[in-house]
């Protein structure tokens, strides 16, 4: 847990602890986020930072924000990746190109929802600078294998955070994205000639420390 917190601090230089945390349901988030948050029901809202606010609850909210920002970073990487791939025209197979476009749209919706969630938690959404030139230069096969790897990593990343999330609403949101990443991973694994179930009957989680080094090659240093 400490490892993960440290990783996030390196990735997100945002002193969220000084910011006021807005009530999750209260903001004017993206429509998509509101829809799936609403599905969680009204009766089980997270504890508000009111009279009984403890440092433990505050730490939980701070960690939720870090997790949401982490997820947003991964979704930006995915969206940028598909954008770059589609722009390059490297995928000639029409069905596969259509799949890439569909997945790209899903990732963009995740970006929009998570951006709204970061704001609602009182944070400042971070967008990484990305580059996928080396992957695209590698050709269609390399692009497909990378897409599959990124989706499997994304699914494992969400799974790795599920038990760390304090807010039920954020957990429900993360789960609803997690399984869509799992669907993407299965389809791309199949297209790449790999097993749809690389971990067998039980999917494996990945921690921030396991995930971030694999994303780093796609991140450009910001000036």
């Amino acid at each position, binding site marked *: 847990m400490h490892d993960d917190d440290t990783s996030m601090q390196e990735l997100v230089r945002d002193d969220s602890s000084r910011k006021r945390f807005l009530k999750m349901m209260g903001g004017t988030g993206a429509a998509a986020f509101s829809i799936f948050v609403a599905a969680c029901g009204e009766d089980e809202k997270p504890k508000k930072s009111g009279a009984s606010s403890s440092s433990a609850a505050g730490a939980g909210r701070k960690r939720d924000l870090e997790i949401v920002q982490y997820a947003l970073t991964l979704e930006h990487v995915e969206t940028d990746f598909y954008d770059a791939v589609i722009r390059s025209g490297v995928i000639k197979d029409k069905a596969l190109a259509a799949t890439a476009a569909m997945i790209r*749209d899903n990732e963009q919706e995740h970006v929009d929802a998570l951006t709204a969630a970061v704001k609602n938690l009182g944070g400042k959404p971070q967008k990484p600078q990305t580059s996928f030139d080396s992957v695209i230069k590698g050709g269609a096969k390399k692009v497909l294998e990378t897409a599959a790897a990124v989706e499997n990593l994304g699914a494992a990343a969400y799974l790795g955070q*599920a038990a760390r999330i304090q807010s039920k609403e954020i957990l429900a949101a993360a789960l609803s994205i997690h*399984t869509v990443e799992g669907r993407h991973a299965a389809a791309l694994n199949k297209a790449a000639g790999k097993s749809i179930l690389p*971990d067998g009957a039980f999917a494996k989680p990945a921690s921030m420390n396991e995930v971030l080094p694999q994303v780093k090659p796609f991140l450009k240093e910001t000036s």
Partner: protein
Amino acid sequence: MKSPELGSIDVQGMTRQSFVVRGAVAAGTVYGVSAVAPFVSETLAQEGGGDVDILNFALTLEYLESTFYEQALKDVKGLGGDAMEVAKTLRANEAEHVDALAEAIKGLGGTPVKPPGVDFGGAFASQAAFLKTAQTFEDLGVGALNGAAPNIKSKAVLGSAGSIVQVEARHAAAIRELNGQPITEAAFDKALKEPQVLQAVKPYVKS
């Protein structure tokens, strides 16, 4: 992938913090729910009532799925090719989920529900009918677990439920491709409430 014997995992020697924070999700998901059950039963027994109910709900669905594929492999007329291969894989996965969930329930001091009586009607009349019903079951499994998971109290059980629901989502995508359907209906999987799920499986359950 078989779950290793319970005795091979030294959960007793770990502190609660190190187990819950680092070990629980990893152990629960890599080795199946069974691996974490003994620890959970000792430390979280008093909080376990709700989790047992949720696990039994999940177990009922996994029994339905596992029986569905079991029967499909015997009864579907003209089953072959990719559809048969997927059916075999899914049958094996669902059986592992059944075993893991039943052990987890016992570990929490609960009693696993019995397999429901089933009647899959015309689902095995053709490969197309089978795949259509399989898609319903897999999407339903995703929605059911996504709906139930936020109410799980134990972090270990939550991690295990997450590891199962991701596999259900992968199944759903594979079946949808065989059906020529989009792999997902939307960018966010719907979370279903228990009454919705029970209503959806009603046609297939014989009491």
